[in-house]
């Protein structure tokens, strides 16, 4: 039930409190009141509401974590 899907914001509809979100060509309206978003943002949508913006540069964080884990030995 906690399924959430990634999409990209196409435009904001401020009066309605929604954003138009593109899920690989499937265009839907999602509520935008839980986090500030702008057109072009990648977002995670759950139950018709934008839950979070997705970050584009998580790679280095993961790299550091894995380096640390590998240092633990087997």
């Amino acid at each position: 039930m906690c399924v959430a899907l990634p999409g990209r914001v196409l435009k904001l509809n401020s009066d309605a409190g929604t954003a138009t979100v593109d899920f690989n060509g499937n265009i839907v309206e999602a509520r935008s009141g839980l986090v500030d978003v702008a057109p072009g943002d990648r977002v995670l949508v759950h139950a018709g509401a934008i839950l979070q913006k997705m970050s584009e540069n998580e790679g280095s964080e993961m790299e550091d974590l894995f380096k640390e884990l590998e240092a633990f030995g087997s």
Partner: protein
Amino acid sequence: MNISDIKKYLHDYDGPDMSIMEVCGSHTAAIAKNGIPSLLSPHLHLLSGPGCPVCVTPSAYVDRLLSLAKDPGVCIVTFGDLMRVPGSTPYNLSQARGDGARVEMVYSPMDIFPLAAKEPDTTFIFAAVGFETTAPVYGLLVDYAVKHHIHNVKLLTAIKTMPEVIRHLMESGAPIDGFLAPGHVSVVTGVHVYEPIARDFSIPFGVSGFSGEEILLSLYGIVKARGQGRVMNFYPSVVKEDGNPEARALFETYFEPADACWRGMGTISGSGRELKKDYSWLDAGSEGLDRDTKANPACSCDRVLMGKISPMACPLFGRACTPANPQGACMVSTEGSCFSWYVNKRG
């Protein structure tokens, strides 16, 4: 280290046995769909915990919904997951609808408003079940109803929180050596909520995404950090350290902590959220729903939810209890452990 190395590590692992629990129904489904158990060493055991909101909702809640649905002036609005969950008898919302009750399935809780606007004389009651992921959407719903003075929309709440039930499992002696922490719950809560539990019980938590590779990466991290009370974020693309404070603040404007009853586990202190007194006019009678009666006395959903037995060990599994004829909530929901084991022939 690449994904092949990680697969090899998890396959060849010959250290002390470890039991790792996932507490998210979407993880349960993804683990089964990707055949993860078949990729692991026999020393690594995966357990499904109380991570499916529908599965942990006690029978009294379903009974109350069914009772409300009898009123011709009421329409129950719900996510599809809840339609076939039995209450204290095998009767469910789907059957109630067949018998003439008004029950509408929606994708978003906010879909209740267009329905309510068309019929001002009908009371629309949302079956507000869920964890921290869905809670902020109920915050949006209440915010909209309050600001637009909408009086024919109400909620029957069974909103639950993860850290309290995880602590309850550990305190009740569940033999768990690590948790695959729920990715989309963590999007809202952030990662710090698991730290006190990790520390107190010296167990690692890996916040995980939902693809097969993401789950393997997280399992690798949990195994490597065996015995360490730490929380690792393997899903940083959407899980920020502090989660989504804006979403939590909106929710907390209208809701407050409360004790909550979990199917098979009884009442766990502070593990739920209910509408604050100022907004109780939006409540459809959520208080005191703490009775939990099995529709079939042999149903073992309670022990499955606590990781004490696998679904296969339930005497009803695959015989009296199948997705076509579920006896307990874990076989109803597509994210329930029993459903997942049944359709993927796991075990």
